[in-house]
Structures are given as structure tokens and as C-alpha cells.
């Protein structure tokens, strides 16, 4: 495992333990989905990586937060989302945030959305740009396949020309 990734995982683990100790209502996405009826309307703390895009709707916005088990939608005021700098995608590890808010399994004011209405969002660990190194084995495979392809192409051309020169040949 690359040292940087290991370091991030370690930090996230420490942050999770700190958040768990600090907030009584710390939950995972799995717990929210499996115990939706019991947790409906309860104050919770949910922690994870912000992924995708910020989707502003008026003075509020939707963000999606992913933990180890799944992804949960969070409805927050635009003001609360200002601190978020990195949204997770192929090129980025998103900010790890702790969301304090109220959980709804079908929010009546948001046309039945399964979500957390955020009262506070805190950056636990900032995101970063992911540098993807090209796998050298893949480059070698491409070279080998290209050479084989050229040889095959030549063979095909040779057969095609031979076929043309022998029109009476039965196939």
C-alpha cells in the first residue's frame, strides 16, 4: 500500500474515533439505512468523504457523503458548504467531513428524500489531488500487442492479395 494512502486511512480512522467519542449520535450509512425507522427524526453525526458535485438549490445545496458502507445525501445551507474544497472523483479524494444534523427517512419538506438535514459541517481531513501513475506493465503490453497486430495485419494483407490473384479458387 502506498504510504500516502495508508496515512490518509490512519488519519480518517483516528478522526472517526475522535468523532465517535465526541458525539453520542455518530452513525454509519449502514446503520442509517438498516435502522431508518428508529432513527427517523433523530439528531445524528455522520462522517465520510464528500463525493460528486455540489448541487445548489436556492440558498441550500445537496451534497453526497460516502463512508465505508454507502453514500447518504445531505441537505445543507450554502453557507455550511463553503468550507468544502475537494469533491471526490477519479482525480480527487474529497474532503472528509463530519455532518451534525437531523436524519429523515422520507423528509416531508423535501418530497420524501432519505437524507440528513445538516446543522453543522466540519472538515475533519482536507481532500487532495490524486496523482495516477501509469502502470509500466500496461505500456509493455501495448508494445507487444502492437507488434503482433502489425504482423497479423501484414498476414491478412498477404492472404487478401493472394485471394485476388487466384479468382477461380473455391473457398
Amino acid at each position: 500500500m502506498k504510504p500516502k494512502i495508508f496515512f490518509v486511512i490512519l488519519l480518517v480512522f483516528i478522526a472517526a474515533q475522535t468523532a465517535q467519542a465526541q458525539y453520542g449520535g455518530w452513525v454509519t450509512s449502514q446503520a442509517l439505512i438498516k435502522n431508518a425507522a428508529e432513527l427517523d427524526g433523530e439528531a445524528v453525526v455522520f462522517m465520510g468523504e464528500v463525493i460528486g458535485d455540489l448541487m445548489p438549490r436556492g440558498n441550500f445545496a445537496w451534497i453526497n457523503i460516502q463512508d465505508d458502507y454507502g453514500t447518504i445525501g445531505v441537505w445543507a445551507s450554502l453557507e455550511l458548504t463553503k468550507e468544502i474544497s475537494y469533491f471526490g472523483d477519479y482525480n480527487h479524494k474529497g474532503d472528509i467531513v463530519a455532518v451534525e444534523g437531523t436524519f429523515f427517512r422520507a423528509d416531508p419538506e423535501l418530497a420524501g428524500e432519505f437524507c440528513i438535514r445538516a446543522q453543522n459541517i466540519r472538515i475533519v481531513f482536507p481532500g487532495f489531488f490524486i496523482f495516477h501513475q501509469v502502470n509500466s506493465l500496461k505500456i509493455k503490453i501495448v508494445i507487444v500487442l502492437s507488434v503482433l497486430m502489425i504482423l497479423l495485419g501484414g498476414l491478412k494483407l498477404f492472404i487478401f492479395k493472394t485471394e485476388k490473384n487466384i479468382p477461380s479458387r473455391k473457398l
Partner: protein
Amino acid sequence: MILRPRIKDLKIIGFYWGKLTIGLSLFMALPGILSLSLGEIDPMFDFIISALFCLMMGFVLHILCYTKNEPKWMHGMIIVSFSWLVAAFVGAVPLFLSGHWNSFLDAFFEAMSGLSTTGLVLVNDLNHMSYGHNLWRHMLVFLGGQGIVVVVLSFFIQGIQGAFRLYVGEARDERVFPNIQRTARFIWVVSLIYLTLGTMMFGLTAVKEGLPWGDAFFNGLCIFMAAFDTGGFTPYDQNILYYHSFALEMVTVIFMVWGAINFRLHYILWSGQRKELWRNFEIRTFVFTNLFVFALIALSLSNTQVYDNFLVVFRKGFYHSISAHTGTGFQTIYPVEFLQEWGGLALFGIILAMGLGGCVCSTTGGIKALRIGVVAKAFYEEVKHYVSSENTIFVSKIHHIKDIILSDKQMRSACLITIAYIATYFLGGAIGMIYGYPFIDSFFESTSATANVGLSCGVTSPSMPTILKLTYILQMWAGRLEFISVFALIGFVVALVKGK
């Protein structure tokens, strides 16, 4: 006496496989170019490797099996049924190289799920996948939805009489034009026009709902391909729930319904005969069963009181009713919610909708509305026969593009395919139960796989047993090809072993 296939037969089959793999390699250029333009260099190499691998495979088959013989019915069926396995195999190569799947089998499962327009997924960390790989996943749905053989027919096979045999093997038996290649091209032209309009429609709505322009249109392209081809893939692991938008959900409902309609009916509508939409027997059956299923779901959701107003019941219930019935598999709830929150009647409704499917000659799976209507008509006629005098002669008539008098053969064929689907739903369910899943979970997932729907109640995951993964792969494949080609393939293998 069973005749053993000769070298000549194997050559015809191999020759057309070669064409297919060469065709697929060309399609891999698109995600490769996208990766390059976005600076995703490592994913770009995945597509170069896969394209070269396909080209090599295609050229080898082309050289070894070169023939000018036309495929007969048997060849057409074998070419099609094997081609789908070959396409899933080569389609899985770039997916596996991305590192988002635990094993090649998982990548093969995903590729088959895409090609068969099912939408069940085994991907890990989808939210961090490259644009190139995500586009390829959705392109698999689009290519599979149009029919891989239709793709080959449109671009690589010129003026052969055997084309219709390949076309039929792919579970399409209605011609829009007398010429099968014109039909194939019509399907492509119409699909590309819809693709452009659909991407614009979703993209603009997504911009209005707060997505940045670039992502809005990329999502639009992917979601349209997955919705119109009733596939059910999305670029994020929350599926359609990611967008938190009623407006976008309604846009996808339009795509799903549009994709579930018979392609021949699309042509009729394009030529201005809009009344056909209301007169068509299959559309009437489809609307009736949809309303029936939604009524079941709404009743169940009202009883369980999981949602406290009708708007939410409509938003969730109607959406999943359409998603299941069209065989798309888009979800706006988490998989376990089906089991935990929705109640038995709603689950029954969803399974029923998945099992029934959309219209024939469309991209949907399942039994299909025309067959359901014909079987219902056959039952009705049978009952009428018992209560009428012996000398009465009944004529069963339906209006499907034109007035059709139903023959016993047509009714028997509809009943046979219906029985084959139902048997496969139960067979897959039984295998799930062997591995310890409860009846309802395994039956739900088995129906979803066979009917190429893609809704999941949580059984499908990277950690599920290998045998169950293989079972679902076979179900998706057989369901997409409506069994006939698969039966032909079994016959071919038997002939290879026991033939003289």
C-alpha cells in the same frame, strides 16, 4: 439422426465472431479518446490494450475462418448466442484493468449485465471511477440494447441473405423495413437522434438542478443510454438517488417508457400515425399492467405508512413501478428498503412488474406485454369456448400495427416463452435459497436478472457466492436472447458431442 457440425459450419460461426470483435474494438476508441482528452492516461491504456486484444482476436478468426458461405438458421442462432458471451468477455477486459472489480468474473458479470441491459452491479468504489471507464460501462448498455448483432449488421455486414437469421437470433423478430439492414440502420439512426435529444434534455435539467455544465451533460449522456436502453447503470453508487431531484426523475421516466416501446411502433409514430399509440394492443396491455402494479404498490405503501403523503407515495411508488416494468432498474431508494419498508404487496407488485417486462422488439427484458396480452386472450377464449355451444367458432383478433388474427401456433409460442421465463425465475430463486438467502430475496433478484431489470434488494454484491454470480450471468444472457438462441446453442453442443 443428429448431424455433427462440420468444419464449414464452424468456419461460418468463427468468421462472424471475428467481425463482431473487430467491431467492438472500434467502439473502444470512444472511451479511450475521452480518457485522453481528460488526461486520464492510465485508463486510456486500458482501452488501447483491450482494443488491440479484440482486433487481434478478430483478425485471427477472420484469417482462420474466412468463408463466403452465408449463415443458415442454425448458424445465425449459434453466432448470436456465442457472440454475446464473447462480447461480454472482451467488454470486461477494460473494466477489469481499471481495478474497480475484485476479479475478472466480477468484471465479466458487469459487462454481461450492461450488454443484456440488466443493470446489476458488482463494482467497487464507483464514485471514484474514471470518466472513460464510466462511459464504457454505459456504452455496453447502449450497444447491448441496440443488439450487438444489429451493430455488426449496420456497419460490417453488407448485403447478405443470412442477416435476418442473425437479427431474429437476437430476440428481434419484427422488421421495420423489408430489408433487414435498413431496419438495423433505422434502429441506429433513431437511437442516435434520441441520444442527442435525451442528453440535451437531461443535461439542461441537471444544470437547472445545480450540476456543473460538464458533469450535467456527461451524466445526461450516461443516464440516457442507461434509461432508453433500459439498462439501469448510473455513474454513481446511489443510482438516481444521487441527484435528489424530482424533475430529473420525471425526465428518466420519459426515457424509460420511450425505450420500452416497440421499435416498429417508433417508426409508425415517426411516419405520423399517432393514433396507433392508443389502438395498439401491446401498448394497452402495457398501460393496464403498469396501472395495476402501481395500484398494488400504492396500496402497500399506504398500509405500511412509510411515506406520509400521496406525493411521496407517487414519487417513489410510481417511479419504481415504471423502472421495474420497463426493465430499467433505476432506483431512488436503497436496496434493503424494498424488504424492510415497502411491505409484501409492494414487493409482489415490483416482482410482477419485473417479470412482465415491456414491449417486444424493444430493449426491455421479461415476458413482454404482447405475450402477456396474447396469453390473457388465449385464457379468455378458452373460457368462452367452454360456455358456448359446441359449433361456435371463435376468432381471436388483436390490433398490433395491423389487425392480426391469432393462430393457435402464436398462442402456443407466447405460452411457451412465458413458461420458460417463469421457470427460470424460480430456478434462479431456488439456487439463491441453496446459498441461504430467504425465498423473497432470492426470487426478487433472480427475476431481476432473468428479466434484465437490475433492481436489487441487496443480494447482488461482490461478496456473493461464485455459483450465484454464474447463475445470474446465465440468466441475464438467456433472458436477453429470449431462450431460443440458447436452446439452439445447447442443441449445437449436443450435436458436436453425439452427432454423426
